[in-house]
């Protein structure tokens, strides 16, 4: 029998959080294995054609699609080496700390001393009649089609959700030459950055707040949708229905953390709607209730990619420190925490602050 493969630190997920974790832990001296199910690193960054917000440290003013190459460069620069396993899905966690991976229909195992889970988030679904028709897509799928494969999702789109994803994907649809009929938002206010909203408005796309989708219709695929206004209690207002002819309904109604592995490992979770639903309980070191498992990025609570990168740095830093690589720990941790605090300190960060207060405020975890 072959001996069990080992690594000091396994980082699961090669998006902004996972890449940042791996780079930071490697720089501290840890031996790192970075695993991603996709054939390329970068996670959802590879679909983000817009310039990032934040500050220089989080690549502000650089387009999302150009960020992976910067991070990969840092990963390859060393001084240490990170073993990258692509096309590899982590599908199981065993009580003895072994993780089970699948690649090309073959299973392999790995025994890490520490794990950072940076698996990101999945899109939420919205219940309405006809939501299973072909032509109803998650916003991420529309981005994949357009921005990875250069394929238009259809001709006329209804965007459901005016958070940053709904607004940004609407703009990207216009850039791809697709008509956006309207953006509808159930809340009374636009949830995303208003500069994104202004960009699509001046290009002629209406945004309707307090408005929701009642049904999608079509025989073999979407042929139209009925939308309606909502009252103050988010209930449909009778008589306000409007029928739109279109072939694409794009759902951008939020994300929820992808934490199956953490559930399987037995990490404590808590329901915090501000962070996207059930999130793993963790401390300020990004350490979960199982001391050798850390978490970062959207898996730790849905937020912007800029924050995910800093959370990744923190998780990488503390996971490495727990392995004995604690060079400059205090000053680096202070720097990263300050950056995170700044990103979350404004009006746009209030929801995150409330969520984190609920998550880290009450529950004690092992440290």
């Amino acid at each position, binding site marked *: 029998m072959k001996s069990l493969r080992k690594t000091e630190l396994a980082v699961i997920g090669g998006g902004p959080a996972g890449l940042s974790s791996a780079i930071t832990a490697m720089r501290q001296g840890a031996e790192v294995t970075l695993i991603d199910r996709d054939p390329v690193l970068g996670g959802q960054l590879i679909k983000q*054609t817009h310039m990032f917000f934040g500050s220089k440290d989080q690549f502000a003013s650089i387009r999302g*699609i150009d960020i992976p190459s910067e991070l990969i460069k840092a990963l390859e620069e060393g001084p240490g080496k990170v073993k990258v396993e692509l096309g590899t899905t982590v599908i199981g966690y065993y009580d003895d700390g072994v993780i089970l991976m699948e690649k090309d229909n073959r299973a392999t195992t790995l025994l890490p001393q520490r794990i950072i889970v940076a698996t990101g988030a999945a899109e939420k679904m919205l219940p309405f009649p006809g939501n*299973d028709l072909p*032509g109803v897509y*998650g916003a991420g*799928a529309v981005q*994949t089609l357009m921005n990875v494969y*250069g*394929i238009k*999702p259809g001709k006329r789109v209804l965007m459901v959700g005016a958070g940053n994803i709904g607004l940004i994907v609407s703009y990207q649809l216009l850039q791809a030459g697709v008509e956006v009929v309207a953006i509808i938002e159930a809340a009374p206010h636009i949830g995303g950055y208003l500069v994104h909203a202004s960009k699509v408005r001046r290009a002629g796309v209406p945004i309707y707040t307090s408005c929701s989708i009642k049904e999608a219709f079509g025989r073999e695929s979407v042929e139209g949708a009925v939308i309606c206004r909502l009252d103050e209690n988010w209930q449909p207002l009778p008589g306000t229905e409007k029928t739109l002819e279109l072939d694409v309904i794009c759902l951008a109604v939020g994300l929820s953390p992808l934490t199956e592995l953490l559930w399987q490992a037995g990490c404590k979770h808590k329901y915090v709607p501000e962070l996207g639903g059930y999130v793993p309980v963790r401390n300020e070191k990004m350490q979960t209730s199982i001391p050798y498992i850390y978490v970062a990025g959207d898996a730790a609570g849905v937020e912007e990619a800029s924050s995910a990168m800093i959370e990744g740095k923190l998780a990488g830093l503390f996971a490495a420190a727990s392995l004995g690589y604690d060079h400059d720990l205090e000053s680096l941790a202070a720097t990263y925490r300050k950056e995170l605090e700044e990103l979350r300190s404004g009006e746009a960060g209030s929801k995150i602050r409330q969520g984190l207060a609920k998550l880290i405020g009450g529950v004690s975890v092992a440290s």
Partner: protein
Amino acid sequence: MRIEEHPIISFKRGKIVSFFFNGQEYKGYEGETIAAALHAAGVKVLSRSHKLKRPRGFFCAIGNCSSCLMKVNGVYNVRTCVTPLQEGDVVEMQEGRGEILAQN
């Protein structure tokens, strides 16, 4: 349905390959996923729900949702949204849940 020119992205497309869907020949680019190639060719229905036989299409594009499970080269339940297209692929809509085939 292909985007020919884009203000931000220059698409690097692989070579054109032929594949079959329900017996009919289609063209796609090597390296893109099977579901993407079918979408570009205007194929919207990829599967049917088991009981009510309602149409199912491209939904998540990251291998999570099961909406695009198809029979590819004789193998059932292939997640076509994350499976790269290869020359000569035989893609079929599958009936029901499919079966587990004996390996070798």
